[in-house]
């Protein structure tokens, strides 16, 4: 960290420059992510066999399953962190930033899952979208958390943001089973549930199963790497906000001749 002259307020760029979100640990994880992704590409595109029914399009599964896994993981982490913020005594903003970062990552990965899933659906079912319980619930999950992210951007203090978003985050978790329940009986009344070929049963090819596992490991590592960086960036943003206020106060004081 550079030392600053005592009576000079640091500029924004100096504040950011004196800190980086990278550490030795994140760099190591980053390299592991790159290696794991290369490994996944190799297994998904080269080693694993094409499916008997679906042909080459089955390879989309190696992205589809890991992305939805990361999305679920993100939302679970976000809900737990929200709960910890609300129900622990010191209401640490660290939990709030963890919930926020995790939700952001979750939204991105649900979005990816929906895109990849609809492409895959076009190839195997002939349509981009099915009004099936799982798909519909996932789509609603996506918009619910976009709303959550919008709440985080409302104006107010850091603790206000944390409280609001924690409440919304926990309500979102309560909502999920209700959404799933409603969509399931809705669809079961109108049509037979779509038979998805993604169920992991004993019949799945051993190499395919292993490739999926590689995907899960690679994407989980990516999640950890993104989380570490994003929470640190958020901490810096909060710091910058607070400093911005201090700077403004100091300027007004100086104008009034008060020291």
């Amino acid at each position, binding site marked *: 960290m550079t030392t600053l002259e005592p009576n000079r307020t640091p500029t924004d760029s100096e504040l950011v420059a004196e800190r980086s979100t990278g550490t030795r640990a994140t760099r190591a994880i980053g390299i592991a992510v790159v290696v794991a992704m290369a490994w996944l590409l190799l297994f998904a595109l080269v080693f694993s066999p094409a499916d008997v029914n679906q042909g080459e399009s089955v390879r989309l599964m190696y992205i589809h399953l890991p992305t939805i896994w990361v999305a679920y993981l993100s939302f679970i982490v976000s809900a737990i962190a929200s709960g910890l913020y609300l129900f622990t005594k010191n209401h640490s903003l660290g939990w709030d930033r963890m919930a926020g970062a995790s939700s952001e990552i979750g939204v991105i990965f649900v979005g990816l899952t929906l895109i990849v899933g609809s492409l895959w659906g076009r190839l195997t079912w002939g349509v981009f979208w099915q009004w099936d319980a799982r798909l519909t619930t996932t789509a609603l999950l996506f918009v*619910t958390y976009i709303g959550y992210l919008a709440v985080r951007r409302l104006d107010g203090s850091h603790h206000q943001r944390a409280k609001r978003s924690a409440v919304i985050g926990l309500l979102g978790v309560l909502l999920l089973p209700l959404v799933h329940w*409603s969509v399931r009986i809705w669809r079961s*009344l109108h049509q037979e549930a779509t038979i998805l070929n993604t169920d992991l049963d004993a019949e799945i090819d051993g190499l395919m199963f292993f490739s999926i596992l590689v995907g899960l490991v690679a994407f989980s590592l990516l999640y950890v790497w993104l989380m570490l960086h994003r929470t640190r960036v958020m901490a810096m943003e909060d710091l910058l906000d607070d400093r911005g206020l201090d700077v403004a106060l100091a300027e007004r004081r100086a104008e009034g001749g008060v020291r």
Partner: protein
Amino acid sequence: MTAWSVAWLIAKKDLRIERRSRVLTNQVLPFAGVTMLIFGFALDANKAVLELVAPGLVWLATMFSLLLLVQRAFAVEGDDGALDAMRVAGVDARAIFLGKAIGLVIQLLLLEVVLLFAAVVLFAETIPAGGVVLLVTTLVSATCGLAAVGTLYGGLAAGSKGRETLLPLLTLPAVAPVLIGATRAVESALGTGVAELSDGWQWVGLLTVFAVVFGVGGALAFGPLIDE
């Protein structure tokens, strides 16, 4: 004074404001009516289709109007800082939540009756005598859920920048189960399409659970949400 009597006072105050300002009757009801009309345009005034989808259209129009009513319910509080004043005066946040929600329930029920009437007139729906009990139960349980969600998110968005756009984004996905459940239950009550009367009650179950979850959750969360 118990929380319930405070809640009732707040609800009465809201309803009195609505009665005097006539926003519900002069703006929200006509808006809902126009929505029903333009559904007719969008669906090419196809009688068979309209009769089939009328229950869904009634609920869709209700939800759009819900957004207006919620904005309105918190605009009257926000203008003079009344919400903060009530909190400073030591009014229990749960009572405020309940009171605002009760006020909304009564306005929404009124609106739904008018919309159902519009569906009968415009879309040739019939209400069989056997379905009345199911219909009324559905209206009440669905409306309680809608009002709870609306009050909670309305309170959250109140007083912040961009609240007009935030409210629908938060509310519509959250009330999706109500839209599905209430539409199916009303279909059963009216006997549209292939819906059977007996199918309707499981939806009422879902609507009731939804109302309870958001009623209780909302009452508990409202305090932290509106406090500065």
